[in-house]
């Protein structure tokens, strides 16, 4: 290659070297990312097998089909919930750990560890915690196990999680009055949950609350558990970069710790928060493993990324699958736009 280029006129050397060095990458990007993305966009206007043009029918399906609407609702809950919770927890944990005299790295490692293991592994871990087994079998999931092991039945006998006593008798939770286990991941609303048992159809807001998908929330927490470490690391690096004079000046002026956090630290971290929010948004939109492994998208827990694959692999509908993919992409655009705006603002300053 080197020799070949040396035969070319000198003025073209740089250009040829450029092509030789950057060419393969550009070609592969074009082949593996750009061309497929364009083709997906086209496919979204075509039918099941990708042969007949059907206009925006797929898009109409995507906002009218009941299952799609549930999927979009879940995606929305995930987006708001994960981004908000992870940034909040990340800020708190990052700020506190930064002030630790010792054990900072140990503490950070613990919080960060879930980021290193796979989402499949994390989902398995949490599926074990949320595990539900039909009564009267022993509850092995942490939450249900603690739930059924408490209290006593209507006759005053203690309830238990099928605990074997010394005299050989067993105490279970099947007696009337004992708390029953809840299928957390099957629970698509709040009916039948503690403090919601006696609410019958009432006004609009009660309905709104009672229809809150608790299983989606619980699955979302898996992602919060995984990504808080990431936010913490990024925030704590950014907090360390704040000039200490500014914080000291605030302290001399008598600002309280909370005031310093709100009016000095947070404004300083604005750009960082946007970066983390961007990363989280993209990650949530691509979130596939958690829902796939735990519920397989059943019980109204589906997300766009899972739905997209199901449309392709199970319902064999390429058009709809492509449409869902385009929806995922469309959701990314606003936050990218925000980033561009922010970059411009910084370039100006």
């Amino acid at each position, binding site marked *: 290659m*080197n020799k070949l280029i040396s035969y070319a006129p000198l003025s073209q050397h740089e250009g040829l070297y*450029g092509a030789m*060095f*950057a060419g393969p*990458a550009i070609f*592969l*990007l074009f*082949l*593996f*990312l750009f*061309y*497929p993305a364009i*083709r997906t966009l086209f*496919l979204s206007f075509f039918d099941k097998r990708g042969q007949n043009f059907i206009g925006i029918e797929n898009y109409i399906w995507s906002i009218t089909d009941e299952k799609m609407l549930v999927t979009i609702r879940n995606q929305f809950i995930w987006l708001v919930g994960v981004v908000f919770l992870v940034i909040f927890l990340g800020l708190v*944990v990052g700020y*506190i750990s930064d*002030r*630790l005299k010792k054990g900072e790295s140990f503490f950070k490692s*613990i*919080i*960060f560890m879930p*980021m*290193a*293991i*796979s989402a*499949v*592994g994390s*989902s*398995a*871990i949490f599926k*074990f*915690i949320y595990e539900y*087994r039909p009564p009267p079998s*022993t509850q*092995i999931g*942490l939450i249900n*196990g603690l739930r059924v092991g408490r209290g006593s039945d209507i006759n005053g006998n203690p309830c238990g999680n*099928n605990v*074997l006593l010394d005299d050989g008798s067993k105490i279970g939770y099947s007696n009337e009055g004992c708390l029953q286990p809840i299928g957390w991941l099957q629970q698509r609303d709040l009916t039948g949950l503690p403090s919601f048992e006696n609410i019958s159809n009432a006004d609009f807001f009660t309905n709104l609350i009672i229809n809150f998908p608790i299983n989606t929330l619980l699955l979302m927490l898996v992602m919060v*558990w995984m990504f808080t470490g990431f936010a913490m*690391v990024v925030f704590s690096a950014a907090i360390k970069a704040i000039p200490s004079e500014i914080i000291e000046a605030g302290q001399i002026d008598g600002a309280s*710790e909370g005031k310093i956090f709100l009016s000095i630290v947070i404004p300083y971290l604005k750009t960082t928060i946007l970066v*983390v929010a*961007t*990363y989280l948004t*993209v990650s949530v939109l*691509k979130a*596939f*493993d958690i829902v796939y492994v735990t519920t*397989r998208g059943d019980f109204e827990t589906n997300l766009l*990324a899972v739905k*997209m*694959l199901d449309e*392709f692999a199970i319902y064999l509908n390429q058009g709809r699958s*492509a449409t869902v*993919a*385009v929806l*995922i*992409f469309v959701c*990314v655009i606003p936050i990218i736009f925000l980033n561009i705006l922010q970059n411009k603002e910084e370039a100006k300053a």
Partner: protein
Amino acid sequence: MNSPTQKWYDKPIAKIILVSISLTWVMPYFGFVLSSFRPGDSIKRVSWWSSIMTGDFIREFTFENYTEILFAENLSRSFFNSFAVTIPSTIIPITIAAFAAYAFAFIDFKGKNIAFMFVIAMMIVPLQMSLIPLIKLFSKGAILFGIPIIPELQINGTFVAVWFAHTGFGLPLATFLLRDFMLGLPKSVIESAKVDGASHLTTFYKLALPLSLAGIAAFATFQFLWVYNDFLVANVFLGIRPQNLVVTSHVAQLTVGNYGEAWHLRTSGAVISMIVPLIVFFSLQRFFVKGLIGGAVKG
């Protein structure tokens, strides 16, 4: 320090918050890892916390789940597959990206800015956008104006397809990060090489590459873990035939599938799948965090 006003973060309440957060974060592993050492029927009969209290856990402690999952259930093959997928999927994109990064950093060629904009634009495209056509591309090839530019490869379900897919998904970020790193190298060194008459290839091999090893290591750690932990791409391009399973898809099969309540296999399988990432994480923490923060924009 005898300051009269104790800082809030020295007060016990802050410590309590920290300890309870750490416990919350560790708790999920605890029962899970513990259960992987208990016999299968025991897991179902007695909850893990009462097994500690009654001492059953110590009495029944066993490694049998691990031998069963590794050999009878053949997770060892999936483990091998994982490496067969991961190592090339890490090396190929880095190699191609290193060349491209050098070009973007040090060669003045026409269309450089446009080409680099293209790389950045590809970073924000979620991989879902490329999935279906990529499957088609790998089986049927590509035809442009009636001319087959990519032949019918029929490589879906082979490792090659996964390598290609991960190469495509990893390239933009790798190029971006390595270019950033190379731009940070002392310019005078690269320029003096040019003055001495070294060609770009020589400069690349002798100077740019060795000097950017730290950047390459950061991305390599990130990409390695990303590919190893990936389930979506492996699931789509390799499928679920037993001989094709990687560790993540194997554990996913166990967890989602019709294994009923095979928690002794689910726990031990998942624990095995976590060993490699945790070793990498604890030994290369610095690189990993760097690569991850840089990778915050991966599409």
